[in-house]
């Protein structure tokens, strides 16, 4: 399994993600420059967090037209895996590879803190090995992360099992009070209908190192690796 992490101008979690994949998960991983078109035979493409193009106009709106995105579309269309974290998720919704949109947080502020997540089911690559009873502590850091979709889309997402994560409290209760940013139905992560394109606002790569006293995020990477190798 070969991972690729795309570097857009303004990406700033590319190195963190690369570091976790390479040093903590012991995977083959390369960085891909946004102006190149070659995906270097990567099986799994990550769009990292950050502020691509300064997040000007709308988060992710400009990066979506970077040269490399054409082949990201092709890769996804052929069933290849693509995942966006934070700004990467915003780019994928702007590119319509994922449903919905990410609006300004309900408190109109950037929020950086630990939150808890609950996996919705085990029927996706990312959540396949997760404990559905566990509240995973994963940090968020974003100003525009409030998931929004119209009613029909929401119903479809629920019906198709496209919702991956919801914000919850430390005990695993999904409630208004545990909603980190005002997202509809506490949605923190989704996938496309064919379950090969994923997006989430929280940062699992920030919870994967014993030095940081929190390794809850490793389970997500572990899910990907174990499933593919199996």
């Amino acid at each position: 399994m070969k991972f690729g992490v795309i570097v857009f101008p303004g990406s700033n979690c590319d190195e963190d993600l690369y570091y976790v994949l390479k040093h903590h998960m012991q995977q083959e991983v390369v960085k891909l420059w946004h102006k190149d078109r070659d995906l270097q035979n990567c099986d799994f493409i990550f769009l990292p967090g950050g502020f691509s193009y300064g997040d000007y106009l709308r988060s992710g709106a400009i990066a979506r037209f970077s040269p490399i995105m054409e082949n990201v579309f092709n890769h996804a269309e052929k069933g290849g895996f693509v995942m966006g974290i934070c700004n990467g998720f915003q780019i994928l919704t702007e590119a319509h590879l994922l449903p919905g949109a990410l609006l300004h947080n309900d408190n109109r502020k950037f929020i950086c803190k630990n939150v808890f997540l609950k996996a919705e089911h085990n029927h996706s690559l990312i959540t396949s090995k997760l404990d559905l009873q566990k509240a995973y502590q994963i940090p968020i850091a974003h100003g525009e992360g409030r998931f929004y979709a119209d009613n029909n889309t929401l119903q479809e997402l629920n019906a198709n099992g496209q919702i991956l994560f919801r914000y919850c409290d430390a005990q695993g209760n999904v409630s208004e009070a545990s909603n980190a940013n005002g997202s509809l139905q506490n949605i923190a992560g989704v996938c496309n209908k064919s379950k090969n394109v994923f997006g989430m606002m929280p940062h699992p790569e920030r919870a994967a190192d014993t030095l940081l006293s929190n390794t809850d995020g490793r389970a997500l990477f572990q899910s990907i690796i174990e499933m593919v190798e199996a």
Partner: protein
Amino acid sequence: MKFIAEIEVMPKKEILDPQGKAVKLGLANLGINEVVDVRIGRHITLTIEAVNESEAKAQTAKACEKLLANLIMESFQFKISAA
């Protein structure tokens, strides 16, 4: 009487507009290379209850000066029409 105020708030021309600059790069990625400059502002519409147009104008100007525009770095202009 009801009036509509169509307000345009723009960064002052001498002030750097980072957003406009980044959007220009994005347009180039789309193959639109002919764009020389991009500046991005806000369009705001107010519906105002006022006795006449000049009062509506005065209210709009006050709203722009006090809240809608930051006069240190933004300029505004507006048009008033009957609703």
